[in-house]
């Protein structure tokens, strides 16, 4: 797994994806946050964290789309399957290398809380919990996008389907759904959506059920990706 992880990291940083996508992610999220400061005249990290899932909706499919779709297109998946690598090692190697790119994007936004810590009163442990939630959310979105990438040989299709799936996951658990779906039903279905579980983290709270939710979500889609490779059709 380590060798595939290293090769994948080299591949990511041999192309624009490794540099441009994390940089754009950081630029967009910081810009949207700063806009609030200048327009409203105040800031809250809850607002900052609440825009991250929507930026992830584009950013994560852009990173994950190549993972398997490109291997299928170039037939290099055949090379990987002819090597002494178990399917789970291939999936984990791909996952952790893409996750590294996601984490780099998230880390690039760190100067923001650090600057605000010096300029205003920011309670850093609360922000750290928020960032922890961002990383968990990123891992779960990434595993879903990797699974979709394993189902096709078209990067564009993988990107669009992943972005669309994440869009529905976000919309169905947002305020928009609250206005369409009766509240009695919403309280039940909310539990299956990532935003519901991300919410406590944005407020600085570590919720054990939400932590388990993100881990299960990530593992489920990684497992489905392994099954997809094991089909060998």
């Amino acid at each position, binding site marked *: 797994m380590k060798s595939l992880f290293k090769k994948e990291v080299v591949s990511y940083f041999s192309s624009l994806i490794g540099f441009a996508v994390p940089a754009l992610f950081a630029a967009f999220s910081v810009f949207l946050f700063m806009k609030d400061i200048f327009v409203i005249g105040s800031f809250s990290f809850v607002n900052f964290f609440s825009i991250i899932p929507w930026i992830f909706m584009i950013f994560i499919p852009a990173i994950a789309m190549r993972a398997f779709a490109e291997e299928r297109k170039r037939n290099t998946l055949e090379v990987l*399957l002819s090597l002494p690598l178990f399917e789970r090692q291939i999936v984990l190697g791909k996952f952790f290398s893409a996750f590294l790119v996601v984490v780099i994007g998230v880390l690039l936004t760190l100067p923001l809380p650090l600057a605000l810590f010096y300029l205003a009163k920011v309670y850093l442990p609360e922000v750290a919990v928020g960032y922890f939630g961002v990383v968990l959310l990123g891992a779960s979105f990434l595993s879903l996008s990797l699974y979709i990438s394993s189902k096709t040989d078209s990067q564009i299709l993988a990107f669009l389907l992943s972005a669309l799936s994440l869009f529905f996951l976000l919309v169905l658990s947002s305020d928009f759904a609250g206005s369409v779906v009766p509240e009695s039903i919403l309280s039940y279905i909310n539990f299956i959506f990532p935003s519901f579980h991300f919410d406590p983290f944005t407020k600085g709270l570590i919720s054990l059920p939400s932590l388990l939710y993100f881990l299960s979500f990530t593992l489920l889609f990684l497992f489905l990706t392994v099954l997809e490779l094991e089909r060998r059709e």
Partner: protein
Amino acid sequence: MIELSRVSKSFGRVRAVDNVSFKIKKGEIVGFLGPNGAGKTTTMRLIMGILKPDKGKIKVFGYDPLEDRVDIARRVGYLPENNPLYPELKVKEYLKFICEVKKAKGFERIAKEVGLEEKLDEKIENLSRGFKQRVGLAAALVGNPKALVLDEPTSGLDPIEQEKIRELIVRLSKDRIIIFSTHILSEVEAVAERLIIINGGKIVYDGQKPKRKGTVESLFKKAVLQ
């Protein structure tokens, strides 16, 4: 030993491999001959465990590709059809990756063996087709495999490069099983000891290569037109 017993594989309604059986022993160089779409690539993928057979049994050095794909990958070097590679990597990076995965050392020695020592720091995308083919062969050779499964190893190369790759295959054949697929008849005459002809997914000839020059062509035509 590589052994296929009544193996079949279909894609939808198309039967790509139909009731195929053969045994290949240590030291044999087998030319796997057939027209395009005959089932050569599917058979090779079945041997490597990249595809699952619908019916039949395959044993590769005692391992079943269905269950033990990784054990087979440790013992068999594979050059897939059209030699897929990672163009963004340098030759050195790619061979190091293969060495790490196969827990083998000495990619420099293998690079020298296939004539790649001058190209180690070049990106794969900048190599000529012939050198790319050598990269694929070098990757298949990592870990000193007991068998090599080469799917059209000279496809798309100019005659001089083809000759070099053929010489390389003969040189590599010592104490190894080598199966190479091709639709170039002269290649089989130059390299193989045994000939398996496949057509429409079925084995239509399996035997020693005829000694007389030019006989392979008539044998092939007869077998395919049957």
